[in-house]
């Protein structure tokens, strides 16, 4: 690049920069004017002050800005450590775990039938509904919920999971604990749970 070209381009750059600033200035002015028109129309049409009430009410409902409180002034994490009693099994469950627990406990959630099937099929090792059963199973289907059947459960999961939504096309019962998958379940050979094998056997 020649020296003249360099200086020319820097001159151009400053001009371009100036141009950019001017364009920005125009845009900002435009925004301001737009606001003025909007406000003026609102004033003349009579709806500008519509959302204001008297001073006292405004003060009552003012936004709260203190630590530990939400904008309404309520304490927002006081339910974090509370415990609720499950109406089904009468156990005391932590509040944040309550909804998933209810799902499993009542047998009505998306995953509850799967877990129930597994439990039934692989025998009732731990017949009483133990802690790990209900509470640790939330996001990973087969956490270490039962000592003996763990390996079996893990193996079955890899067979079951890719298939389960599709397999029960004609027989999908949302609330039943004994889903159609159950019919195919064979204690000896979990490998039989293949996608392509049709239900009627």
């Amino acid at each position, binding site marked *: 690049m020649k020296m003249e070209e360099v200086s020319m381009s820097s001159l151009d750059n400053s*001009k371009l920069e100036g141009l950019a600033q001017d364009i*920005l200035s125009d845009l900002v002015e435009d925004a301001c004017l737009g606001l003025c028109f909007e406000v003026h129309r609102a004033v003349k049409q009579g709806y500008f002050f519509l959302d204001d009430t008297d001073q006292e009410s405004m003060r009552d409902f003012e936004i709260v800005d203190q630590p530990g409180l939400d904008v309404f002034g309520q304490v927002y994490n006081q339910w974090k450590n509370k415990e609720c009693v499950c109406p089904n099994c009468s156990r005391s469950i932590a509040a944040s775990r309550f909804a998933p627990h209810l799902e499993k406990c009542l047998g009505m959630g998306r995953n509850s039938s799967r877990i129930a099937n597994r439990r039934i099929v692989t025998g009732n090792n731990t017949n009483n509904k133990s802690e790990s059963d209900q509470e640790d199973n939330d996001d990973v289907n087969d956490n270490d919920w039962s000592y003996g059947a763990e390996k079996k459960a893990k193996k079955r999961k890899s067979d079951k999971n890719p298939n389960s939504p599709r397999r029960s096309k004609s027989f999908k019962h949302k609330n039943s604990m004994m889903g159609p998958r159950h019919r195919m379940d064979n204690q000896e050979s979990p490998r039989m749970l293949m996608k392509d094998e049709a239900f009627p056997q």
Partner: protein
Amino acid sequence: MSKESRMRATVNQKLTEMGERERLKELLRAKLTECGWKDQMKAHCKEVIKEKGLEHVTVEDLVVEITPKGRALVPDSVKKELLHRIRAFLAQHAT
């Protein structure tokens, strides 16, 4: 200098024709609302109106009161972002 003014005219024309000006306007409006500028300015408007009287306030009154303050209150981040886009456009279409 006329070369420059020609260049400016061309750029401005392109800006409008290609719809970029409109897009920039919308972007600016959205950003200003987001950052609370609009609410600030509205509050200022309320004061002006209370001062001048609801019945008698004119567009001119508002413009005179609002525009200088409005220009000054635009946050730097918004300005930077807009400038960035403008410069990109210029880089593409001004040379």
